[in-house]
């Protein structure tokens, strides 16, 4: 009887570890930028390239920075959710970071699917994306009044994520 206990214990430990391994999501990495100030940037706006928008312009506001691109497939799932949000609750500030995209393609994409963004910033080289640690579009950052990143959503915002995580957080921060 006692002989069987050790292999059984090893087996159980193994099953527990494998079980934990199965529930991990290796695509969703914890961002080191959480609770850090938004990296400084100044980028031309997509609709009016002569106008720039910088990180400092946004101080004092609770806002959402959504990284998107016309070539991004998962963005198609997310886009209607954001369009709907911009219609039902205009007090939520949604800004876009148009990541490594062609301006014409991006404008066409917004014309077709609707534009939920107060403004989109053109990051054609993807350099601001690198500073933000973007590795899989779409990604969304929630930034507080002090300009600190409070949350990062990796992958598309679903209605559930929006209602359960993002909106409660933004309301708590004072949006």
């Amino acid at each position, binding site marked *: 009887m006692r002989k069987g206990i050790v292999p059984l214990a090893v087996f159980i430990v193994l099953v527990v570890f494998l079980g934990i391994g199965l529930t991990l999501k290796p695509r969703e990495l914890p961002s080191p930028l959480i609770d850090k100030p938004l990296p400084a940037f100044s980028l031309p706006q997509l609709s009016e390239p002569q106008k720039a928008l910088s990180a400092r312009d946004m101080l004092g506001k609770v806002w959402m920075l959504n990284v998107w691109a016309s070539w991004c497939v998962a963005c198609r799932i997310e886009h209607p959710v954001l369009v709907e949000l911009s219609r039902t609750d205009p007090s939520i500030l949604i800004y876009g970071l148009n990541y490594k995209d062609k301006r014409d393609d991006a404008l066409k994409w917004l014309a077709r699917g609707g534009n939920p963004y107060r403004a989109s910033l053109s990051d054609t080289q993807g350099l601001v994306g690198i500073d*933000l640690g973007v590795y*899989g579009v779409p990604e969304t950052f929630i930034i507080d009044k002090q300009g600190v990143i409070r949350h990062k959503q990796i992958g598309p915002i679903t209605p559930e994520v929006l209602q359960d995580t993002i909106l409660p957080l933004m309301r708590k921060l004072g949006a």
Partner: protein
Amino acid sequence: MRKYFLWLVLCCAALNMGRLAAQEAPTLAKDPALEARMMGIAQELRCLVCQNETIAASQADLAVDLREQIREKLQQGETPAEIRKFMVDRYGEFVLYKPRLSSRTLLLWGGPFVLLLVGLGVLWRTVRQQPPEPEAPMTAQDEEHARELLGIAKERE
């Protein structure tokens, strides 16, 4: 040997300067020494798009961009350690294929040694638990029996 190497480096640098003067900024990718240094750093960094590939090996768009970043930073005179910090600041410890020793990675670094110790412990116990059993000396009866059996075996041959 070292002197020779230094001359070689100086010559390369001089050649490059000539090139810079002759034509407009050649792309750095064409500088093999820089390319080699860049690849050396990129080989220790994980690509976040295809997570089992290094930034050196990956064809993902992001990896191409990050290789360019490393090139630019090397050209600006940043050290490999500074470049690694740049990556960790943005993508987290996960980008390092060789994680730094910290309280969070202690199990990762120490785990194999703990397992080795456990293995040695088990080995030690197993070896100690089986002392060679002293064989009882053969009695006269046993010897008689053995001889009998051998005799039978001989007869059968």
